[in-house]
């Protein structure tokens, strides 16, 4: 082992095999992943088939809104440091039953939130799985902020105005304070009195904040899985 050449050869082979298995293979699998069409087959054939309401659609459907731009803001502002976007299966955590992490926002989650799978991130360059859960999971945040755009902006502008215990930083640089024109902008934030700007001014989100809000509102990772992925038995009707 005293020769440099042998050392490098053995070291190289120690590195190459795991790199192929742990990096290159998963990467190739992601590159080859395609959207899947829901299949509508005759129940008589006995083959599994998807819900009729999904006819003609494919999974995962395209992400609505200004997604790419919002995703970029999400990445640059470092949201992944504290927010995850994944629902773990029941063997690895309670995520599927967590209140407010799925479609239902009130009461006990009767139908478990679907665990996230590889296809859910198909349209993303880098899946924002997140590093820590300092804040709540955002896999299905779209449901949480549905019709509550002002709440979402308030969370971004001054998190502790919404939840006193929040440890999130405020993202005031995504908003501008400007003189009101006429009755004011539709998008102007409805702020609590202690944060409200001086008379005649208003706080409005910048285009970056709007893109980010679009992105968050589009986060609904619970589209039904096609049976061609789950391999489920056909339901008897």
């Amino acid at each position: 082992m005293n020769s440099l050449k042998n050392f490098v050869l053995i070291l190289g082979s120690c590195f190459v095999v795991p790199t192929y298995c742990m990096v290159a293979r998963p990467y190739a699998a992601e590159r080859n992943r395609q959207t899947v069409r829901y299949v509508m087959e005759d129940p008589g054939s006995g083959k599994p088939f998807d819900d009729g309401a999904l006819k003609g659609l494919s999974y995962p459907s395209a992400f609505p809104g200004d997604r790419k731009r919002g995703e970029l803001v999400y990445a640059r502002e470092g949201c992944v440091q504290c927010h995850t976007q994944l629902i773990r299966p029941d063997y690895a955590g309670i995520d599927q039953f967590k209140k407010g992490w799925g479609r239902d926002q009130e009461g006990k989650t009767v139908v478990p939130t679907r665990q996230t799978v590889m296809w859910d991130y198909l349209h993303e360059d880098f899946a924002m799985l997140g590093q820590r859960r300092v804040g709540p999971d955002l896999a299905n945040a779209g449901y949480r902020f549905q019709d509550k755009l002002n709440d979402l902006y308030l969370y971004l502008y001054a998190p502790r105005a919404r939840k006193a215990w929040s440890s999130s930083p405020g993202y005031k640089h995504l908003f501008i304070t400007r003189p009101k024109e006429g009755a004011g902008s539709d998008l102007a934030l409805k702020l609590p009195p202690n944060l409200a700007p001086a008379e005649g001014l208003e706080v409005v989100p910048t285009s970056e904040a709007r893109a980010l809000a679009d992105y968050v509102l589009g986060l609904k990772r619970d589209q039904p899985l096609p049976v061609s992925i789950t391999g489920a038995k056909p339901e008897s009707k």
Partner: protein
Amino acid sequence: MNALVYGWAFQAGLGVMIWMMARLCRTEVKNPITLVVAGHFWNVGVTAGVIGILAGYGSPMKWLEFPSMVWPILLVSYSMIVVWLVVMFAARSKGDVFISQWYLLAACFSFPWLYLTANLFLNVFQKTGVAGPAIASWYANNILFLWMVPVGLASSYFIIPKIVGKPIHSYQLASFAFWGLVAISPWSGAQDLIGGPLPAWLPAVAGTAQILLLIPVLAIAFNHYLTVKGHHRLVELSPSLRFTFFGSIGYAITSVCAALLSSLTLARYTGFSFAQDAVALSGVYMFFTMTMFGAIYFIVPRITGCEWISGGRIRFHFWWSTYACIALCVLLLAAGFSHGAAADTWDSDMSGAITFSYGYLVGLILAWLFIVAANAVFLHHLALMVCKRGRQAGAATLIHPAAPYDSAELVITTEGAEA
């Protein structure tokens, strides 16, 4: 974290690598101007990266948060430096190869390999989907176990025998541990994402590898222990040995924590919590940084030609750092578990998790303040040494004034100065 890894660990590591490689190959450093220039480029790259993150151009990839324009600078400057280390090794005068040299060589090759692979896939090929976070985790974990661990171990395999004054207890065990580490470590990493939307085998294999890494740890700890056995008094006296010894314990603690968090039972509570930071920080600080301090206490007197001024300052530096990094590890683990347990109830929002871990995180800031204080003292001490204002006396500075019966061992501690 990025600033700590690329702004401290790599500079310290490279400095120790260069000195130690030259020493062990018994040659002069080749091409010092290239090394210095490349080092400056590295610093420029790190500065640009940190400013980039603060200016809002960061990326979401773990330990690769620098803007993507930075990575070629770092890769090229690192390669420019290590190429000369490899040349030094190839041109060494014939003789035995020390185990430290293997570790140094492994570190020379591992960083370019890891950094190039991770950046090629994440920044050049792109469209990684869910493989992206897995690749980033693989990279971050292996920077710890395949770069910092080899550099740290090269230093401890050098300093422990040097100060104790006898060879490593078992050469076979050392070589077994080396190949174990190098062969197993590249498989680990993705266990951070247990339960994530990945093929289930990926975190499973990675977790298994992380647990198997305990075997080389055991071999290394056993070897170090047997080498020092009978000379424990020196751990108390010699600054380099004391820091190195503590660093080795830190290595064992880091590995045990990492293995524990890789098990499915615990990952349920610790996944995506502060407990994972406990592993990263105890690896970077308790193990790597403390070992590097040990190496610096050994190397600087030999370069400047004067001895450390005061044992009291070294004692202060050691105890405040030790206290702080134990606190860091314990507080982050406690915060992680309380955070995870609070998040594991179905009907609570995150308020429980945040308020439960709040106290620990305040404690964490205190621990960082301890580190700031310890390092301020160290920096002042080091600055005096670099200005050649150290003691010109012949005997090495010890942490405590030596008692008369230590004089026999004192000869051994100063022996390195002449070699």
